[in-house]
């Protein structure tokens, strides 16, 4: 398992960024406190929270509780009041037991983080996470949180795996390792906080945010070829071809089916088929990120209007095509533009 210090691979980027700016004595990772503060580092398989990785400390209210116990004890001694003694000891014992109950709340919990769907920059990524506890009756009020992000509170009941998503706000396009997830709880009395970290090799693809001011691309090209309009659309009947699985049922030439045994699909030509090149060089006046943002908008618009479009980026060229898959390819190219080539791909 890679410690953050010895092998600063890309998935540790966020973590290392944080540590890099600390003066050397404060880099607690070098003192062996790394696991305490930053977790184990990413792990391949499902993570089981063993006693080695569940931490517990009193909360601020827990310290107040200790103060209450001290006051009660002083009152009991001073008034020589045995029922106050009894109350003090009962609450003390409850404090001790709560420590065990809190700890047990997280112990043996099994966690598996999934790969979230791609989102546009600025949106909340939904990181799927699966929790299960086969060794404890229930785990209550478990808070799941990527540090700095909103928390989700869940309850895991005996033998029932729980599938949920935790939000992560995205601020940068690209492919990001999902940071460690903090699993914590103050159940049952709020006296102790137990926590553990889970980090797995999971990635979030973040597309650039589409530019809200969507100026049209400067030019669309209309290309009529010698063989006629080869653009496909829904308006003009262009001919028949043999059926491919996946063709719309509406376009099947039913009369031909009735006549013979073969299936034919009717092909239609668009009355005007636009082909569009979305070109990096079209936007010289913008900086890189703004260009990517604008291009993202264009890709979305082009997809919506069912154009055939291609994307030209420095060093990359995606040929004219259409469809959801093409769109994703384009968006991914935009997301990963100018990122380090050694970025791991999911």
């Amino acid at each position: 398992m890679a410690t953050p210090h010895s092998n600063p691979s890309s998935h540790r980027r966020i973590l290392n960024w944080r540590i890099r700016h600390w003066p050397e004595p404060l880099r607690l990772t070098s003192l062996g406190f790394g696991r305490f503060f930053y977790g184990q580092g990413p792990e391949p398989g499902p993570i089981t929270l063993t006693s080695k990785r569940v931490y517990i400390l009193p909360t601020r209210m827990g310290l107040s509780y200790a103060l209450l116990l001290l006051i009660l004890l002083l009152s009991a001694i001073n008034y020589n009041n045995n029922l106050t003694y009894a109350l003090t000891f009962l609450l003390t014992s409850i404090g001790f037991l709560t420590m065990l109950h809190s700890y047990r709340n997280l112990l043996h919990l099994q966690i598996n983080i999934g790969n979230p769907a791609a989102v546009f920059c600025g949106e909340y990524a939904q990181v799927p996470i699966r929790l299960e506890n086969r060794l404890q009756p229930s785990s209550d009020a478990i808070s799941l949180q990527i540090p700095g992000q909103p928390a989700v509170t869940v309850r895991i009941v005996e033998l029932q795996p729980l599938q949920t998503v935790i939000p992560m706000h995205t601020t940068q396009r690209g492919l990001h390792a999902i940071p460690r997830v903090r699993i914590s709880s103050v159940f049952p009395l709020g006296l102790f906080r137990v926590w553990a970290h889970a980090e797995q090799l999971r990635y979030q693809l973040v597309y650039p945010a589409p530019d809200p001011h969507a100026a049209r691309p400067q030019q669309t090209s209309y290309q009529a070829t010698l063989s006629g309009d080869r653009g496909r659309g829904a308006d003009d009947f262009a001919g028949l071809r043999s059926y491919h699985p996946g063709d719309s049922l509406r376009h099947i030439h039913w009369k031909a089916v009735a006549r013979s045994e073969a299936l034919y699909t009717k092909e239609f030509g668009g009355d005007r088929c636009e082909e569009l090149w979305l070109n990096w060089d079209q936007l010289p006046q913008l900086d890189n990120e703004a260009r990517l943002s604008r291009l993202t908008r264009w890709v979305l618009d082009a997809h919506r209007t069912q154009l055939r479009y291609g994307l030209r980026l420095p060093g990359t060229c995606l040929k004219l095509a259409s469809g959801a898959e093409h769109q994703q390819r384009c968006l991914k190219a935009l997301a990963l533009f100018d990122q380090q080539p050694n970025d791991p791909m999911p």
Partner: protein
Amino acid sequence: MKTLRQRLHNTTTANLWLLAGLLVALLPHLLRIPLIISAAASVLLGWRLGYELHYLRLPPRLWRWLLALLAAIIIYSSFHSLVGRQAGVALLVLMLGLKLLEMNGPRDFSVTCYLGFFLISTVFLFTQSILTGLFMLLATTLLLTALVAQYRGTEYHDTQHISESMNLRKAALIVAQALPLTVLLFVLFPRIPGPLWQLPNDRSGAKTGISDSMSPGMISQLSNDNSVAFRVRFASEPPPPAQLYWRGPVLTVFDGRTWFNPDHKKPWSKVSTRSRYQALNAAISYTVTLEPHQQRWLFALDLPAMLPADSILSPDYEIIARHNVEQLRRYDMQSYPYYALAQTEAPPERPYLQLPTGVGPQARVLARAMLAQAGSKAAMVKRVLQYFRQQPFYYTRQPPLLLGDPIDEFLFNSRRGYCEHYAASFVFLMRAAGIPARVVTGYRGGEMNPLSDYFIVRQSDAHAWTEVWLAGKGWLRVDPTTVIPVSRIENQLDRLRIAPDGISNVSLSWAHQAWRQLGFNWDLVNRAWNQWIINYNNRRQQDFLQKIMARFGFADIDWQTMILTMLLSLFAILAGYAWWLLRRSEMKHRKDPVQRYYTNYCHKLDRSGLARQVAEGAWDFAQRAQQRFPEHSKAIVEIAGLYNRLRYAPWPRKEDVHRLQKAVRCFPNRIKYPQALQE
């Protein structure tokens, strides 16, 4: 308009649990503190409840400040102070109520709960009875439930059903698990004697029991308070009932309405300790466990031969403690039931002959006539007692109010009264005849608990009698009430109590007998509670632990050992809990006894060197086991058969589970290999 059910559905249940817990913790206080403060606390609690049910809104910040100011004013005007026990509790109650009006968020919630726990501890300053203890345990559990409900939360992203009984069960479970630890800490935590700092002298505590003044005729009804005043255990044979006079405050001055003692107003150290007494025979020893009565009297049989710690003997032979008895107090005593005072004692110069002017003119005439008739002062005492016996004087618990002259009205007109009337008029007649006399109040008699070996003296045993001083004899006890013939005592129970040496012809109904029997049982429980819980102090702890240590062969135990023992056993118990709570055990096995027994059996075979293969059926495994251990073949077949039947039969039978359990239990833990097979 929403229904209550809808309103309840939309509310935060944690807050309702909190309100319930606080209400239970407040109840004992609400009945004790001044009405206006109880009312204010109820209003504040009700306000929050109204808010929780969406009827009311919480007041804005300015209003809350004004309310806090108002609360302080109310408390100051009620107690003329903001500190001290009574005022402090009132302040806590109202501040807690105000806290409810601004409580928002989990931190506030926890703080309010902690204040609730503190409130519970203040209840114990006033009463430590069993019922209070149980009631406060309920309050503690409710407050813990509130905390559990708060930290379990309700805002889950998916709608999982959280029932309220789950929260209550969780809290009750934690309390139940905490009890053994509590007992351990309670027994072993070293008790430090004495207060850490001087307690403010609290004069406003509600006094109970005997008061230090007496106004016969002012109160027309004797209270029928059956609560325990104190319990007594005699070291040897108890004295006869006629000798059981428990001496309390002595009243010397009569102002025409009220008997009192001006010395009682003096501070503790100013009471003169000039008193001499001599005893004739051996002292009897006993132990008194006095219930708190918020006064300074300690009760002892006539006449006390020793003094408990922190107390003095007044010239009137009253035992006066340094502080008010605010907690159960246990003291060893010795008394001389048969005493005679020194013959050399000079006639008392103190105001034992004082009489208010203008009161009881007829009585004075009567006294002078009687003295002339009797001749001597000793004969005069007998003459007056005879007067009470022969004239139609009645003993009743409901005497008429004496509107006119209280002495003459009683002696010549109403002639109906209880001990106070007789003692007062007797002392009046004595003083009018020139015989020094005084009223002694306290308790008379007591009831032996037939289930044990101690006397119960109740508030209803309160009594007033007199002492007269005769030259050459000193102070003599005279109880004028006892001369009333039994036929003139109205109440059956009073006949039993007052008549000298008991009367056998008083019969009680069976229901009354049964009730008394129940009362004795309950008193036994109370006494044990007092002895082992309330009065478990430094000395008793030492005694108890030494007794236990002696059993294990240890000679002595000092406080270092005590703390060490406490910490070690604490960690041992906690380690036990940790093992139990944090162990890995498959949930499905815990829930499924059949699987558990079968797994147990597989472990046994595993230890013997035969491991079950993954996905090996019970029969296949049994066949292998049979080959390996032919001598256990019968048990192996039985277990496999039972397991298969319980698992796969369409109607598994319940008794098979027990047979499986038994068969597995009987199966050897580890089978020794036969020598031949091993080679």
